[in-house]
């Protein structure tokens, strides 16, 4: 392994600094830290600190802190240096803790561009280099010009291409067509649809709106009806608590509504001006209203394509397409921000199919004939939760509301039975020469598709009951996570496992 000095010495390159504008970014980061810190400090100050500290010092302290923040932001800018050599990128950073980071080009997995709103006037971006392995090995260039960012990206890509196949000259991107071929754009309407379909709580509460008065009326009448009993059981003070409790629940409901609205706004912020394009065998997603984000993913790294559809998506005929590559590091990332997933939000079924075909040529996931899973899965669901749940709910409804409870109990029984049967019916597994296809879902139907060649490991599970029926639960471990399908008959599973192992072990395809 080459160290920073080795890389730096290997050819005489000079150390660069990022743009002075990066001070704004560092300031912003520190401001965020300070504010989160202040949340703890301010109450402490209000409770006891103001006695110890005369309030006339306050402006002085605040301005002192502000000055410190500015100074440290400037220092962080001054102490951040990087150089790009033929082997990799070295970075010197940190004011007191000097850190030297070395990234050889081969280890850089992903290059992400972010453009915060305060960088837009100057046309600067933040470049994040993701490496395989731990999340600590991540390098950020804050505030480089757009052109320089592209230059970094091109250098990395070129170096990697050269090291991978030195003999093929066309592997190096010669003419850099920046936009590539645009595969998909999302309109505002699509984004609103996406916001709506991905915040089902909001819809639920919205449809309940006409009944709010009746519901709250019902709640308060019930509370008043129960009041004497509560009083006799627990005493008068408890009644106050009882009202407070109900009020808390109501406030919580209102909060949930507000949160849902926020997340709709969030999805629009995130995906505004969405384009998915492809160049040099790389998929590039650009989107964002305030912060422009660019995420790219190499086609050969894609492990699985998932077409996800919820009940609302199904009503509207939309699908969320996830294109996933390997998970780097252990951290769980927000689905929207994660660099290992490429989400194409709320596309139509045809678009989803076409895009999936672009990723995995000749895939047939929507045309395939699926093998259903065994009916015992349905019985297991019944015994494990359908019957116990219905018994509990039916009993409590009828016990509390007498004959009035019969209809809701029956309704719940009917709905839960239908959903369980649908869920069972959706499960399906099949494969062709290249791909494994899985169908699942409850009301909406999800279609998953991954190449046989990408499998890392196969796990076959059987408990004693399904073993006797010659059924198995299959788990395919991919670099992007596991894919599990229950209650497959051995007749389907055995040839599939053989084929998959043969493909991986004899043809020896790369997974990256």
């Amino acid at each position, binding site marked *: 392994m080459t160290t920073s000095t080795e890389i730096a010495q290997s050819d005489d390159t000079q150390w660069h600094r990022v743009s002075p504008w990066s001070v704004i970014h560092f300031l912003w980061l520190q401001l965020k830290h300070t504010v989160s810190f202040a949340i703890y400090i301010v109450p402490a100050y209000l409770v006891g600190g103001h006695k110890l500290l005369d309030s006339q010092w306050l402006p002085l302290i605040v301005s002192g802190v502000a000055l410190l923040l500015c100074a440290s932001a400037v220092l962080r800018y001054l102490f951040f240096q990087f150089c790009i050599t033929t082997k990799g990128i070295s970075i010197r950073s940190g004011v007191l803790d000097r850190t030297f980071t070395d990234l050889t080009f081969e280890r850089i997995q992903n290059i992400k561009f972010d453009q915060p709103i305060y960088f837009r006037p100057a046309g600067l971006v933040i470049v994040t280099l993701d490496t395989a392995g731990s999340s600590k090995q991540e390098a950020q260039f804050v505030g480089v010009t757009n052109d320089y960012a592209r230059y970094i990206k091109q250098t990395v890509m070129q170096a990697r291409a050269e090291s991978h196949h030195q003999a093929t000259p066309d592997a190096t991107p010669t003419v850099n067509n920046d936009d590539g071929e645009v595969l998909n754009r999302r309109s505002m309407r699509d984004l609103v649809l996406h916001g709506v379909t991905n915040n089902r709580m909001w819809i639920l509460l919205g449809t309940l709106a006409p009944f709010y008065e009746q519901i709250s009326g019902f709640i308060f009448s019930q509370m008043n009806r129960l009041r004497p009993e509560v009083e006799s059981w627990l005493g008068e003070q408890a009644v106050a608590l009882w009202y407070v409790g109900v009020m808390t629940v109501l406030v919580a409901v209102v909060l949930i509504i507000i949160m849902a609205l926020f997340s709709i706004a969030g999805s629009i912020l995130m995906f505004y001006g969405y384009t998915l394009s492809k160049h040099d065998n790389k998929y590039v997603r650009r989107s964002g209203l305030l912060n422009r984000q660019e995420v790219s993913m190499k086609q050969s790294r894609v492990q699985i394509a998932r077409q996800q559809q919820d009940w609302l998506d199904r009503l509207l005929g939309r699908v969320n397409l996830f294109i996933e590559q390997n998970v780097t590091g252990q951290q769980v990332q927000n689905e929207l921000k994660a660099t290992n997933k490429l989400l194409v939000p709320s596309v139509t079924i045809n678009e989803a199919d076409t895009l999936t075909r672009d990723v995995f040529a000749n895939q047939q996931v929507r045309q395939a004939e699926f093998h259903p899973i065994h009916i015992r899965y349905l019985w297991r669901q019944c015994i494990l939760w359908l019957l116990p749940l219905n018994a509990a709910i039916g009993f409590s409804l009828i016990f509390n509301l007498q004959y009035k409870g019969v209809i809701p109990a029956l309704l719940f029984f009917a709905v839960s039975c239908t959903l369980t049967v649908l869920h069972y019916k959706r499960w399906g597994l099949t494969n062709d020469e290249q791909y494994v296809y899985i169908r699942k879902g409850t009301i909406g139907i999800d279609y998953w598709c991954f190449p046989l060649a990408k499998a890392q490991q196969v796990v076959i599970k059987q408990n004693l009951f399904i073993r006797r029926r010659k059924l198995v639960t299959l788990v395919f*471990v991919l670099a992007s996570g596991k894919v599990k399908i229950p209650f497959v008959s051995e007749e389907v599973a055995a040839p599939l496992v053989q084929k998959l192992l043969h493909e*991986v072990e004899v043809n*020896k395809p790369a997974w990256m």
Partner: protein
Amino acid sequence: MENSTVTNLPLKSAELPILASLPVEPVSARYRALNLGLSVFFTLFVTVILAIVHFQPWFELPFEGQVAVTVAAIIIFTIGSLTFAYHFFADRLIFYTVREQDIILYKGLFFKKVICQPVLRIQHIDIQRGPFERYFGLATLKVYSAGGSDHTLAIPGLPKDIAERLRQFVLNHSDLTRD
């Protein structure tokens, strides 16, 4: 190794019940003995401590304390005997097979599990030995793939030299130098 000459002999027919009719090797019998011994030892150890607390002559335990100690002893004893029973039956059922192109682990008492890890997809491999395992001359072979830490294939209870040999087999395997 050339692609055309790659073999993976024991598999020929697609009608095989999944990976079940391969010749398998059990892990060391000492592994079971170790687990049984450990569960007996720890159960007795904790029970004896609780008994000492209960019956010591120096101070009188309050009534709640006596109940708590008794309940704790019962719980420990139950857990201990369940662990003992589990290892008694389940440890005999751990088998593995090493083929030319993959490593297969069989385990499970009520929930049977067969894990097949192609050598091509192995990221790295190591041998772990706790103090008790060292004393018994045993080792656990851990095989990591890009599937993440949840899917590490671990073969427990291997005699040390066999674990070393398996590790060497994987390291010498031509597939590991690919990519």
